[in-house]
């Protein structure tokens, strides 16, 4: 079919990255795109390129001043970073101290997930890969913490799968990647359970069911 089987009921990891790349992030530009007044007065002398972005707000892009932090979407930040035209400011949760706090929370609350942002895995992965020199803390330690968090949460997830039932599931603070990995398995199992449940119920309680 037009959509391949493997994409039919879940996102591919690339698609998740694509979604995450639409989130804003803070950067320190190394170029200036804001026009100063003199330039603005005689624009005919030097035609200044004005960006027009169709997917996102372009005000910040046209208004960058070198070394003054501003917020742009992640894909643009990565593009600029690749060309050495900005440095990315790591998000507040991506510091050793914060991550330690999260890990602590995870360990102390075996039944809950720490409130990491929904895209933490992808953002961490992307930034480690493409902006490793912009972190204040050493990257290998951050990487280790992220890995720890991931493993703790994974073990919790697999424990939580014992409680699969036919009606509902509560997954607070689970990130998109984690949900997406689970999706085919959990929805498949829950669908089957629902089917069995419904057919069993219909046998004895048919009249009530159809009154709805």
């Amino acid at each position, binding site marked *: *079919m037009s959509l*391949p*089987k493997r*994409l039919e009921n879940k996102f*591919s990891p*690339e*698609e998740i*990255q*694509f979604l995450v790349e639409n989130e804003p992030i803070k950067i320190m530009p190394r170029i200036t795109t804001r026009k100063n007044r003199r330039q603005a007065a005689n624009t005919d002398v030097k035609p200044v390129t004005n960006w027009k972005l169709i997917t996102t707000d372009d005000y910040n892009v046209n208004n960058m001043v070198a070394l003054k932090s501003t917020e742009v979407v992640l894909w643009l930040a990565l593009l600029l970073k690749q060309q050495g035209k900005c440095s990315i400011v790591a998000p507040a949760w991506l510091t050793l101290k914060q991550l330690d706090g999260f890990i602590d929370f995870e360990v102390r609350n075996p039944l809950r997930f720490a409130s990491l942002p929904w895209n933490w895995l992808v953002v961490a992965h992307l930034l480690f890969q493409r902006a490793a020199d912009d972190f204040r803390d050493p990257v290998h330690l951050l990487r280790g913490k992220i890995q720890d968090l991931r493993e703790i949460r994974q073990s919790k997830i697999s424990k939580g799968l014992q409680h699969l039932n036919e009606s509902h599931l509560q997954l607070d603070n689970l990130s998109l990647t984690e949900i997406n990995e689970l999706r085919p398995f959990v929805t498949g199992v829950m669908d089957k359970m629902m089917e069995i449940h419904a057919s069993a119920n219909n046998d004895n309680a048919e009249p009530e069911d159809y009154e709805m």
Partner: protein
Amino acid sequence: MYGDLANKLILEAKRTQQLVNTNASSELPMFQEEMVHLILKEVSQLQRNAEFLKLQEEGGKVSKCQYFVTMLCMERNKRCLLAYEKVRSEVLASLAWEHNGMEFFSDITGKTQDSGNLSHYEQEYLKEYSQLVSDMKTGDLIDVDLSGSLTPPSDVFIDVRVLRDAGEIQTEYGVFNLIKGSQFFVRQADVERLIQQGYLQKL
């Protein structure tokens, strides 16, 4: 028993599905012509039975039951035949989307070398389905390459290595001289088609 043949056909369909799912090579196994033929023969025999039963209307309960079971057998055969054909048609449709759409939608016959494996009707179907696909692409949505890659773009420029000699190939954005083993740094959008056709390898 009636329906045993149909079961075999379903097993064949399952095998097809697995084959396509695992190695993703778009080669469809042979159309099981004789098995389908045998099933159809069985159905027409069943039909004759049904007509015969209908003639002796006065049979009462017993003939009613016979009639019903005959119908069920036919139903079963129909389901199996349809399932088999549906599996194959899905593979054909994905073929039409993945390969025939790329750049040269003229060479429908050149792309599916296994057209001998298709039945006559399937060949017809594939041809018309590809036509539908290209109609859709040249319709209102002409700006978007609907059969293009489904992985979202991540890098604007990429390195590619030429795997197969292709001489000078014209893409819409310019001419490349593709010599085997050479390497280019090009915009991804330009070479996506060539990568899909297997001339280039992304690095």
